[in-house]
């Protein structure tokens, strides 16, 4: 199934929760969806027979300036089709529903996005830092991040 067909199907099912379909890109087209409905849409995408997106290839956190974004690259092992989902949340309140219950691989990906971008995944059962030390301050992959000069009284060399 092509992304635009999936978009049409999702649009009929979820209505306004599916915001826009972007195929202006030279390569991958993507679907932007409403952050609040993310969990339901993902659940449908995984379990409904015509979609069966059982394989979450990649989950990336993004710093979009004003907002933070999460990009989901989905793949179906049965239908062999791909889909890119995007959600955004304001940087002041970066809360995105967790899909860790749907695809368990999202567990570590979300922890990484939390660690590096600072996105709060709601419903994640163990949202702690994964790559940085557990007591690290700040989220390094944000564009405005400043590396600290000292960590535990040790000079951070760069």
């Amino acid at each position, binding site marked *: 199934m092509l992304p635009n067909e999936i978009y049409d199907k999702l649009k009929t099912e979820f209505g306004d929760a599916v915001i826009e379909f972007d195929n202006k890109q*030279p390569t991958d087209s993507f679907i932007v969806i409403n952050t609040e409905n993310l969990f339901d849409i993902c659940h449908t995408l995984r379990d409904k027979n015509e979609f069966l997106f059982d394989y979450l290839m990649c989950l*990336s956190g993004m710093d979009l300036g004003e907002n933070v974004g999460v990009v989901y690259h989905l793949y179906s092992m049965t239908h062999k089709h791909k889909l890119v989902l995007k959600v955004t949340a304001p940087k002041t309140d970066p809360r995105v529903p967790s899909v860790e219950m749907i695809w368990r691989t999202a567990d570590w990906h979300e922890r990484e996005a939390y660690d590096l971008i600072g996105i709060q995944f709601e419903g994640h059962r163990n949202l702690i830092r*994964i790559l940085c030390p557990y007591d690290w301050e700040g989220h390094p992959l944000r564009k405005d991040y400043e590396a600290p000069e000292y960590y535990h009284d040790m000079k951070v060399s760069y």
Partner: protein
Amino acid sequence: MSDKKRLDLEYSQLESDRMRINVGPQHPSTHGVLRLEVEVEGEIVTEVVPHLGYLHRCFEKHCEKMTYLQVIPYIDRLDYISAMNNEWPYVMALEKLMDIKVPDKVEYIRVIMAELNRIANHQIAVATFGLDAGAFTPFLFFFRDREYIIWILEKMSGARLLYNYFRVGGLAADVYPGFKEDCLNIVKQVRKTNAEVMDLLIYNKIFIQRSANVGVLSPDVAINFACSGPVLRGSGVKFDLRKDDPYSIYDRFDFDIPVGLGEVGVVGDCWNRNMVRVNEMEQSCRIIEQAIAQMPDEGDVKALVPKRIKPPKGEVYMRAENPKGELGFYIVSNGTDKPERIKARGASFVNLSVIPEISKGYMFADLILILGSIDIVLGEVDR
């Protein structure tokens, strides 16, 4: 004291204490600086908590500060055992973004390089898996052969391990004279050693007892955890990006996808995962032979690409079948010569996340084997 109370006391004394052991970051068989916090009851593992990040070097942050070509050496350092394969999805992603057609000869050389490196990677994987089980000798057999492969890669790129060989739209250098003969000799040698190791290690009774029926990963769990590569195929899922999501020129070659068949033990155990790797070496040999036969002698190894890589605004997710599994690069370009965001989806990172799931209830010694059978490289896990 009443009888009941005394009895309870005795039972509570019988119950053994659980011990928490740190496996790593300094440990002979964590394959790098991985730390597993293991809770054991006697010898039985009851809980595994992986702690990552000892090798974290902000790869993605670095990428945002560099031009596209400068990123390639850093990509070598993700999965430093199979650096050729790492570079491939990255340059493919950029080629896709910039809509560059790569010359035929380049594709063939890339395939040969990647498959040679796949063999080298699987040799290390099988060798260290044997080492985890206590067999030292196959380790050195494989390392001897890997040396020959590395010599070829060194002659091609100038480096033994971190090649920096792939370029957007081409390669750093053309093949050297005698390259084809070298490759065919390697293929012969790899097959010979594999036959030897089959007897010495793979079908060894003790090895089978150790690794069969251990760390069973069922196919649906594997897919849900987005495992890829030999870990997924070891569970019996016939999924290989070279066939199922073909990229480059893999559709021109005739090869099979080895899956775990449960010949010994059950499908999805350590033995089957390991066996997939051994069989994949043979398939890689087949691909190399065909590629050598089909490769055109004439031709340039560089497509017409501007010196400064400046992809148009847009984004792309490109994945390729690495020896460890699916390595994907999500590249967001903002139209300048520096990437807006690069996310590397490492196969080891995702494959490692099943460790807590599949190692509970096995022996402590099995945990090491399970870790070895997943074949992680910490450079890719921690990035």
